[in-house]
Structures are given as C-alpha cells and as structure tokens.
C-alpha cells in the first residue's frame, strides 16, 4: 500500500495542496485506475465509487435527446410481475439484495461524506460533459470514451448465447463485504440468485472487475466454471475450491429475457424494456397503428383560434393542432363550427362560458370539454362509456394542467411545431390510458389493443383514481423521519463547501422533492401546487402506473418544466406583489430504482447559475438522487413501505367476505355472552407479538402517548357512542386542532420549512428511547458502519411488525370497507390500498365511487357558496337549498354469492357517506362501511387524520 501511495504521489501533481486526508483519497482513486484490470479491489474506501457509479450514469447519457430531455427507462428483467394485477414481490429481498445495497451504501455516502476531491472531479467532468453536449450536435459523442461497454475487449463473441469470460480472481485479497456476503460476491463480484437450480446474475458488486468489463450482464446465466457445469448445488463448492490467484473461465449464457433484443447490437441492459416502459418512453414502434385505433374511437383533441377567421379561407382555417389523425380524419374538426358558435354565443346569455357539451355520434354519447386560453380554445372529446361527464371534466383539467406544467401555456404547447411530437405522445398516452382503462399496462401490441377495446365493457367509476390529489401512504413515524431526513439532505444541495474556494456556482437550486413507492406518495417536500403539478405529470405520463406495476432497473427522466409555484415562469407585469419570483428555468428530474421513484424540481437562475440553450441532465444531481434512493433502500424504507402497503394495519379495513363471516359467526356469540371475540387472526398475532416484546411495546407506547390508541383501550371505551355526539359539527371540528397536532401534521408537510423537520426530529428523540434512535441517523455526519444501518433497517421492520392495527369505526366490529380522505388544498389524499379485489369488493367499490363522485359534485355548491362574498351570494345562481350541505349518505344493498349451506341469497347493506369539513382546512371524507353500528363521520374523519402521524 505504501508503495502505491508514493507511486501515485509522484504521478499526481495536484495532490500537494490538499489536506492529508484528501491526498489519500486521491491516491486511492488513481490506484484504482491503474489496477482496475486485474485488481483484487481490496480497497473499500469510498472514493473508488466514482468509477463505480459512473457505470450507472453513462448508460443514460447516450439517450439524452438533442433538446436536453431524457426519458430513460430500463426494466428489471428478473423482477417483472407474472401477472400485473398481483403485487410485485421482490424475490431478492431477503437474500442477496440487502447485501448489495449494503455495499452500495458506501456509494451513497461518498457524496455526503467528505470526499471533496471526488466531488470536484466529478463536478468538472459533468461540466465538461455538458459543454460537449452543447457544442456537438450529436449527444452520443458525450462520453463515449469512458463508456466501459465500448472499452470492453471485443475478442469475445457477443452474439452467441454462450460465451466464455475470462476473470482473474485472487482469493487471498478478499473484499470485506460483511460476513453475510456470499462467496460469489466476494470472489467474482457478482450477485447471484438461484432459479430452478440455475445460477443467474442479478447484480454486480460495485467496482468489481465483472461490473467494469460488462461482459457478464445482469440476467445472464452462469453455465460453467472452468469447464465444469454449474448447478446451484456445486456453485459455491466450486468457488470455495479456488485457493490461489488464477484465471477463471466462466461459461455464460445470455439471459433468455434479452435474446430478442440482443440482436440489436445494443447493450442488452439498455434495450430491455417492458411494453409499458417502451410506451412511456415513446419508443413504441406501432404508434401509428395505435393512432388509427384512436381515430376509430370517439376521441379527439382540437386547438382552435377564436379570432382572425375569414370567409372562404382554407378548410382547416384556425386549427392549430389536431389529434388523432390529420385534420380530415378527426370527427371533431367537421363540427368545430358548432362549438365555436356556442362558445361565443352562450356567454351573452348566461355570463359564463360553456364548459362542456354532450353530443351523440353514431349513437354513442360523447362529451366535449372546452378549455379557453386567451383567444384560443381547446376542445377535448371523450366517450361517455369511458368516463362520465364529471370524470371527463376532471381528466381534462388534469391534462391541461400537465401541458401547462411542461410547456408553460397551452398556446406555446400547441402552436410551436417543435413540441408537436411530444404533445402527440402525451395525447396518445392520455387517450390510450382512457380507452384501455385498467388494462392499459397489459396492452402489448395493436392486435391485442383491438381485442381489448372490444372486450372492455364500460369503465368502472373511478372517483379517487382521478381526483387531483396524490395518494399518500403515511408510513410509521420512524420511517417517515428517515425519508424526510434523506430528502432534506438531498435538497440542502450541500456541495457549497467544496465549491466556494473554487469559485464555482451551483448549477441548480432544489425547489423540492418527493418520493413515490409503487405509485403511492410516501413523502413530499413540495409546496402543494408543485406537488399537484408533479403528480399530474407522473400520472399523465403513466409513470405512476409503471411504478406501481413494474420494477425498473433504472429510470431517469429529465425535462424542462414550468411549475405553478413560480407562476409558470410567466413574469406578470400586472401583479405588483412585493415578492418577485426569480427569473430562471426549472427542470423536473425523476430518478427511479426498483419500485421507488424520487421526483425533484430544480431551479436554474436566481441564486444558482443561469443557463441558456438546451440542458441535458447533470450527472451530479442525478447521482445524488440515485444515491438518496439507495440510501433509503438501505435504511429499509422501501421494504417497510412494501410491507406497510401489504398489511394495511393503520387503519385496518375489512373485506366484505370477512364481514359476512364474522357477522354470521360472532354476532350470535356476542349477543349471547355479551363478550367480544376477536376473529381477526392478524389482529391477534400482532397483538400477541407486541405483548411478547417488551422493548417494542415500550417504544410504541411512548411514541404514541395519546396519538396511537391501542385497541384494548378502544374496546374498553365501551358502548356505541356517537348517538350523543353533537351533530352541530362546526363547533366540534373547531375544537379539534387545539387538542392534537394531527392537523398541523397533515397540513404542513409540503412546506419548505426547516423548522418542521427539526421539530419532528427533536420530538422523536425525546419521546423514544429505543436503541436505534440513539445512534444518529444522519449518516452523513457520523461515521456509520453498514451494520448500524442494517440494525436500523431491522428495527424499523420490527416496528412495522409490532404495529397494532387501528380501527376507524365505532362499535365492537370493524366495518369499514373503504375510505377516501381528500385535502384538496394540499393535493393529498388518503385511501387504503387493496391487495386483492374480490367480486363483492369490486361491486361495492364501483358503487362507492360513482356515489362519491355525485356527492363530491354536490359539495361543490357548498364550497363555491362559501367563497362568495355577501353581495355576490344573494345574486349567485346556486340553488339555495344546496348551499349548506355538509354530509351526504346513501345506503346500498350488495348481493352476496350463495354459500353451501344457504338456500336463499344473502345480502349485505353498506353505507357510502361523504362529509365536508371547513375547519381547520377544507377537506372531504368519504367512507364506505357496513350498515351495523351507526357511525359519526366527524369522529371517523378525526381518527382517519390521526393515521397520518404514523
């Protein structure tokens, strides 16, 4: 080691001016460069990760488009769900994967932890690279030389499914990968998994030889070692038999998943995409066929000028944009005159412009939505069988919001020819999502599309699925803190110390970030309007569906956007507000790994460097986001989230079948004995587990103190109440916030308020005395070993296991099937995640959704009336009987399938109830529950809001 150091000291001129620590770092760095082709990689120093993580960044850099935008999605070949309706289970979760991430944690630390020089080097590279892109018209020229793929020796036959890879191994210099690392990881640098007695490569150990050569790809099968056939029985034995440095000849079979694409002469890892991913990234070849299909359905978009039309102009006069198909094949274009007339005529009669028209086309009811911008008009046609009028309005306003987010204004979006391709793509996704509804993810080619459209009946009502709100899944408090912490760390953009001395201005300010897991929002540090923008973008681009249904190996999306919080970048001369938004440019950066997705909004300009021209993603920021995801995964947040989504304990719901079963069995007993019996095995097991582990119980209890109410308390709280509770809810609700912090918590998540984070931090460390709390979670500030983090991981998981399920309903039994809690102002929605859908549940849910939509529209009367001033109120045209409605309920009957011992079909009644709250913030709660014990919606909503405290 000493020898190498001196050697590199001589070669490296620049190291002298740095401190001793950084000198060492730089030497290791250069050592790695020198030795990388035969090294044993004995160094575990963090600095070596530079080259390691390069591997990740180089992949996507070749995909950057000429305007700087990037849609890079690589699906994970081994993690694809067999049936997309089933939740994905991470097959690696217990075995190899955790180790990989443990190793990669050193990567994640590198940018937090010291390593100034590394950052600097990386930073320069990225700057240099950006310049390259700017200068050269061909973005592929960027960093070609450093691409390990192109460096790979070409003497190995690539096309064959079988090839032999030479690998120099040295068992004497083993890398310290922790005691649980397998021999394949330590020796070969390959993370393997056994599948049907064959060995597959699932990942590389960072910086390992194999990862650099990239001759072995993820998904490949290891067929032989030194000519011996490998099975899962002898694989470890063969490797353990190696006791001296030698050259291994690995027989590798190319991953069967990749066979089709490997003929493209592209790297397999880049080209593997599921059909869904391909559609999202816009690389679907049969787009034209899809367009033809759309032409046959009653959908369409038209963007028109309202002025400047003359008699006898060309036929398509005033049409700025039209989709699908060209002007002639669009059914809207022939009748656009009618809509133009109505649009100009109706304001004369009723003061407000039209919002929608319904027409019959070939016997099919079609809704046409009007959206005005300036003197231009957007018309969107959607068939009634796919969405009702109310749903169509919501869908369209979402589409418009997304287009404004990506293009600043509709006018810019539709008028500028360079955007046409993107807008076509957006429209294609929008309409195909609508036409195929929940089958969208499964559509693979046009033939199946055609069959699908035949097959699919009318779309089921989709109330909460299209509400303008992100579906938030509040994790347990500890995990929530981990996420908040990691996101804050990322947002702090803490590279200033290394840059100041070198007069290097930051490229971007991070405006906020949020984290999705399987399509559900886990945490958001956005102002609410930005959160909505981002959420709408993800939903309209199909990213949420991708995130939910499929696991990606890597996802990087980069696009210039115009967030609402900066008034879409329009400097309005009229507003004389004291605070002027900085002039600048904004970019959305989405980074995904497996089923986690991190969305970040970046601002250039203001205090950061102002930019001109097209901007390709900055390597440093992408890596920082990727590292944050890695870190979150390491701390176990993703596995907790998965588990949390599966168990759904807080609040716990009940499925209709269980409700019936328990009704038939338990009620009789209860009424006879006057006792309560728990028929819920999950509840029992988790309850006993919490009793058995005193430490756990302690921590939960101490944390909860009045916030979590364990069920025993609940049951002892006695008979049904709610009858006595005052119905005069205004006073009741008003008294709530003073008692509890929950509303504060719900409300202010999204603010960029450092005190909030520190506050919760502080509170938690005070409240809790569990062991992991003591060790600091700020991985960046303290030397944290991997074992600490895995402990953290475990303790977090344990915490989930020990959670006592909570119940929303009053009365002895749990009777809630479904709920939706919307905070429109914050753009956040709480709703359960159903793991399986029985026919009964589907029936109940679709009743729930259609009714809830009706209630939601009814509540709009009350909401809009509240906003009116006194004088306006008396002149408004709202029906006066509707202006004060705050609760609405409907009772439905659900027929249950016949069971063996019953003669007549049994049925069950359930309520769908909606409630509107104004204090402290306007919120709507919709609950679906079995008709047994009467429920007080105010209490129920309160309990629901409590769940957000974790």
């Amino acid at each position: 080691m000493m020898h190498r150091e001196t050697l590199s000291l001589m070669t490296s001129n620049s190291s002298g001016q740095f401190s001793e620590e950084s000198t060492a770092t730089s030497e290791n760095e250069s050592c790695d460069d020198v030795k990388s082709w035969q090294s044993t990689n004995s160094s575990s120093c963090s600095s070596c990760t530079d080259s390691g993580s390069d591997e990740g960044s180089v992949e996507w850099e070749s995909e950057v488009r000429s305007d700087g935008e990037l849609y890079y999605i690589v699906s994970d070949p081994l993690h694809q769900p067999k049936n997309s309706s089933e939740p994905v289970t991470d097959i690696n979760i217990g075995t190899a994967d955790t180790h990989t991430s443990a190793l990669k944690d050193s990567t994640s630390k590198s940018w937090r932890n010291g390593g100034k020089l590394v950052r600097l080097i990386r930073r320069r590279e990225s700057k240099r690279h950006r310049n390259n892109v700017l200068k050269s018209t061909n973005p592929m020229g960027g960093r070609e030389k450093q691409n390990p793929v192109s460096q790979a020796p070409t003497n190995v036959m690539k096309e064959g499914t079988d090839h032999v890879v030479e690998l120099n191994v040295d068992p004497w210099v083993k890398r310290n990968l922790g005691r649980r690392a397998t021999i394949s990881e330590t020796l070969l640098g390959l993370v393997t998994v056994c599948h049907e007695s064959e060995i597959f490569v699932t990942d590389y150990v960072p910086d390992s030889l194999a990862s650099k050569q990239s001759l072995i790809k993820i998904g490949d099968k290891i067929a032989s070692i030194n000519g011996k056939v490998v099975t899962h029985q002898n694989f470890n034995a063969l490797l353990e038999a190696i006791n001296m440095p030698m050259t291994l000849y690995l027989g590798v079979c190319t991953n069967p998943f990749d066979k089709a694409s490997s003929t493209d002469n592209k790297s397999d890892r880049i080209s593997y995409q599921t059909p869904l991913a391909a559609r999202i990234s816009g690389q679907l070849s049969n787009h034209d066929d899809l367009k033809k299909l759309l032409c046959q359905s009653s959908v369409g978009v038209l963007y028109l000028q309202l002025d400047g039309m003359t008699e006898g102009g060309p036929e398509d006069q005033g049409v700025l944009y039209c989709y699908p198909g060209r002007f002639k094949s669009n059914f809207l274009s022939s009748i656009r005159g009618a809509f133009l007339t109505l649009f100009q005529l109706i304001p004369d009669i009723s003061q407000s412009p039209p919002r929608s028209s319904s027409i019959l086309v070939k016997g099919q009811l079609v809704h046409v939505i009007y959206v005005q911008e300036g003197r231009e008009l957007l018309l969107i046609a959607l068939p009634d069988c796919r969405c009702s009028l109310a749903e169509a309005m919501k869908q369209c306003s979402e589409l418009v919001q997304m287009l404004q987010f990506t293009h600043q204004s509709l006018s810019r979006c539709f008028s500028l020819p360079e955007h046409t391709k993107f807008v076509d793509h957006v429209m294609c996704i929008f309409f195909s999502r609508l036409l195929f509804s929940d089958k969208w993810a499964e559509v693979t080619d046009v033939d199946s599309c055609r069959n699908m459209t035949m097959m699919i009946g009318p779309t089921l009502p989709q109330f909460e699925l299209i509400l303008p709100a992100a579906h938030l899944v509040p994790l347990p408090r500890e995990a929530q803190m981990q996420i908040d912490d990691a996101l804050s760390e990322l947002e702090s953009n803490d590279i200033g110390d290394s840059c100041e001395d070198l007069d290097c201005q930051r490229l971007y300010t991070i405006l906020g970030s949020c984290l999705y897991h399987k399509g559900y929002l886990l945490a958001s540090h956005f102002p609410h309007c930005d959160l909505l923008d981002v959420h709408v973008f993800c939903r309209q681009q199909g990213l949420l569906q991708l995130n939910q249904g499929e696991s990606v190996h890597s996802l990087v999306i980069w696009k210039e956007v115009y967030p609402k919080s900066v008034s879409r970048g329009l400097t309005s001369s009229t507003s004389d507000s004291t605070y002027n938004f900085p002039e600048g440019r904004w970019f959305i950066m989405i980074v995904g790994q497996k089923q986690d997705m991190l969305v970040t909004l970046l601002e250039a300009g203001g205090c950061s460097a102002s930019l001109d021209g097209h901007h390709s993603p900055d390597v440093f920021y992408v890596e920082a986001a990727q590292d944050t995801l890695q870190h979150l995964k390491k701390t176990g947040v993703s596995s907790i989230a998965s588990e949390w989504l599966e168990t759904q304990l807080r609040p716990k719901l009940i499925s209709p079948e269980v409700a019936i079963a328990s009704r038939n069995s338990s009620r009789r007993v209860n009424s006879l004995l006057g006792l309560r019996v728990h028929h819920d095995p999950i509840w029992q097991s988790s309850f006993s587990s919490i009793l058995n582990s005193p430490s756990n119980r302690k921590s939960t209890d101490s944390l909860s103190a009045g916030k979590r109410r364990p069920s025993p308390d609940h049951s002892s709280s006695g008979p049904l109440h709610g009858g006595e509770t005052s119905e005069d809810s205004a006073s009741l609700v008003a008294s709530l916030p003073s008692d509890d912090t929950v509303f504060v918590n719900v409300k202010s998540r999204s603010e960029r308020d450092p005190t909030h984070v520190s506050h919760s931090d502080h509170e938690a460390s005070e409240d809790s005395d569990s062991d992991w709390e003591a060790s600091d979670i700020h991985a960046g500030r303290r030397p944290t070993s991997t074992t600490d983090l895995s402990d953290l991981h475990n303790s977090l998981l344990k915490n989930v296991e020990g959670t006592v399920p909570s119940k929303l309903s009053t009365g002895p039994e749990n009777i809630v099937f479904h709920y939706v809690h919307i905070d429109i102002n914050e753009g956040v929605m709480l709703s359960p995640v159903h793991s399986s859908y029985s026919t009964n549940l589907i029936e109940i849910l679709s009743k729930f959704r259609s009714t809830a939509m009706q209630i939601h529209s009814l509540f709009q009367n009350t909401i809009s009336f509240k906003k009116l001033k006194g004088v306006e109120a008396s002149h408004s045209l709202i029906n006066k009987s509707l202006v004060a409605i705050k609760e609405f309920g409907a009772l439905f009957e659900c027929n249950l399938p016949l069971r063996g011992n019953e003669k007549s079909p049994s049925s069950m009644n359930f309520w769908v109830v909606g409630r509107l709250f104004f204090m402290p913030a306007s919120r709507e709660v919709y609950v679906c529950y079995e008709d047994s014990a009467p429920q007080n919606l105010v209490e129920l909503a309160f309990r629901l809001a409590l769940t957000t405290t974790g």
Partner: protein
Amino acid sequence: MTVHVLCVTSAGGLPLFTRKKGDGESLPFSIVASLNGVHMFCKSQDVILQTTSTQDTTYVWDEFEDSIVLVAAASCSSEVILRKLLNAVFNSMLLLVGVDEIRNIRNPDRLKRELRVCYPLIDKLMDGVDGSSVNISTVTSHTSQSRNANACNERDSGESYFCGNLIGLSETLLCYESNDLLTCLDAYADCLNSQFACLLVSGRELIATPAWEDLHPLERQLLTLLTVVASPCTSSDTPVFLPFKSPSIPFRLVWVLLVPGVSVLGLCGPTPGLSEAEHLALQCWGSSADHLRSITQIAPRNFPHSIHLDVNVLGFLLINLDTGKYVLSYTANDKPVWHANDKPETVAERCNPINAPSASHRLHVLRTFYYQAAESLLLTQGDLDFVKKVKSDSVKESSALEAYWCSEYHKCHGIRRSTNVLCVLYGSSVPTHTMRLLSQQTLSILTTDKQLRW
C-alpha cells in the same frame, strides 16, 4: 334563477314560442335562431347535440316528431330535469293541439296562434323545475328572525294552491273518507257516459275511476294542471288530446266546481253538454256537499289531521312508483289552518323550532332533495317510464335503499321500500341515525293503513 323554453320548427327554423320564468331577460330572436342553428348544423353532420353546460346554466336540445325542436336553458338545474321539462312541454302541446297538427306543420303562423293556449300550462310546468320559486329573503332570514319566518309561514299556508309540481307525476292527497265519495264519482262517470273521472281537491287528485288511474301520470298531471290554470271560473269544457292514449282523437275535458276548492273532472265524448254536466254534478254530489267542504281542510297538509307524525318531521314527500302518484306535505306538524288563526303565537312556537325552514322553503328543499338525491339514487332508470313493463326483466338494476343529507339548516332523509319512496324533511337538530327510524315509522304509518287507499 331563470328558465327559458324555446320552441322552433325543425324544418324552417321558425320560432313558435319562447317562454321565460324568473328574473332574467327574455331571449332575442337572434339568439334563439343561433341556438337552433347550432343544433341544425350538427344534425347535418350526423351528430346530435344534446346538452351544453356552463358553470351554472344548462342548455338542453331535444327534437320531437322530426318537426319541432325544443330548447331549454336554466340555471342551477340538471340535464335530467330539463329533459323531463321539455318532454312535458311537448306533451302539453300535444294535449291541446293534437299530434297531427304538429307532425305536419302546414301553416306555422296558425300553429303559433293555436299554441297560445298552452302558455299557462307551460308556465306552470316551468314552476316545477328545481330551484325556482324560492326567494332568498326567506332562506337567509329564517335563521336569525323566527318572527319573520313565521310571518312567511302564515302567508304561505293561506295559499292553498302550493303544488309540489314534480314533473311527470300526479299529485294526490291522503284522506280517510274517500270510499263514500268513490260511489258518488262512479255515479257521476256513468251519467257522463265516460270511464274517466276524478275528484280534485285543491288541484290534487283525491279519488279517480280505475280508467283514469290507468292514464299515464304525465297525462294526469297535465289534465289537473289545466284546471288549476283555469281556476277563476266554476266550470269549463276544453277539447283535449291524450298524448299517450289518443294523440289524434280529441276528448272533451269537462270540469265542474262543486264547492270552493273541490271540483270534479270528466273526460267524455260529444254529449252531454257543459250545462247538462253541471246539472248532473249537482245531482250526484249535492248530498255530500258538507263532506266535501270538510275535506278541503286537508289541503295544505294533504293528509288527515288524525294522523300524528313525529314532531321532528317538518314535511314529507311520498311517491308510489307503480302508479306515478305522490303526496307532498310541507306542513306535516302544523295545526289545521282554523286553529292556527286562533292562536298563531303558540302554534308558531310549537311547530317552528328554531332554524326550521319556512313552508315555501320546505317545499323547495323537499323538491330539491327529490331531484338531486332521491331521483338519482333511490330510483332506477326504468322506474319512471310507466310504459307497461314486462314483469320478467331478469337483470334489475338495484337502487339505493336510503339516502340522506345534512345541511346546516335542515336534514333530509329518503327511504325506498319496494315501490314506495318516502323523502322526509327534518330539523337540523335530529341525530342522523334517528332519522332512519323516524322515516321508517312514518312510512309504515302512511302506507299500511288500508283506509288511506295508498
């Protein structure tokens, strides 16, 4: 709140009439022409324009018999109600003009003149559109000034013709003594040589012959409304077509006032003449004049005073979906009018709890609840068609069993049991789940009594 109804011939686009209800401006010809033109243009492109809606106004187009286009525009109303309104408007044109005249319009100017007789009927129908006829002062004042509300209440209860006016349903009232009267009615119908006769109390059907009950509910509603709009006289004789039963052969609608508030209706052929009919009516009903007079006391309450409902029930609307009739009572717990006049103070205190809506407001709330909640949730698609249903329809769409809403000032609860739908209005202090019990109780009181002939 403004409602417009426009009528245009589809062939030439000639306006036949425009009616307006509410405080808005009436529409100039150019706008009428444009609204029709848009519809016509779409039709030429094989697209049928159905509705257009703005923030608060809905426009509905409908074409009938390929010869007439009706357009309705109304604020704070839904498409469903407006479509019903247009259908009712068209049927009232059929009622008075006949289908032949409308199918082949030879002389639009003549048709225009003939249609003038429909105006009162159409105006009455437009009253029934949700959201009309409530003035704001009663809504806003009744919370703070109960005095004021009481005054309103008294004034309203004076008006006996405060009809529910649900489009497409015929209004009735519940009465114990109706069986004796039925024999009188049968005798009168025999005298008129007709099967169709009914007894009206304050413009509501009390009893009717079986053949009359077989008429479409909309026909029954239009026929009774005709008498309401012609009320100042004591007898009348109008030629009418029955839109569903005989759209091209006219009948004579003979209406005779028996005692103030009570009248008898008969559909008959060329004979007997009006004077003879009046004479016959005197013969048949003379003996029961006192009885008839006592019945008029039911009027604003619309169900017998001997039935006591829970004190929290402010009003109710009971609908029978089989026969398409309904009873509406918005003074369910008020004392009879003559008592109220004696001691107005105490009655007001007892029956008008704080925050209880005034009578006209109650009617309005009940109607709104019916249109906004009950009709969409408690009723299924086929419930109001009244076309002779095939009984064996296997797949029956299920409706909700109950629906309720809670406002700051009142609560409404609707309940459906087989073909009966009951909507009840409560004060805001009634607990939500108590409403369910009270509604069930009320429903059984009103529907199980055989003597009430529900």
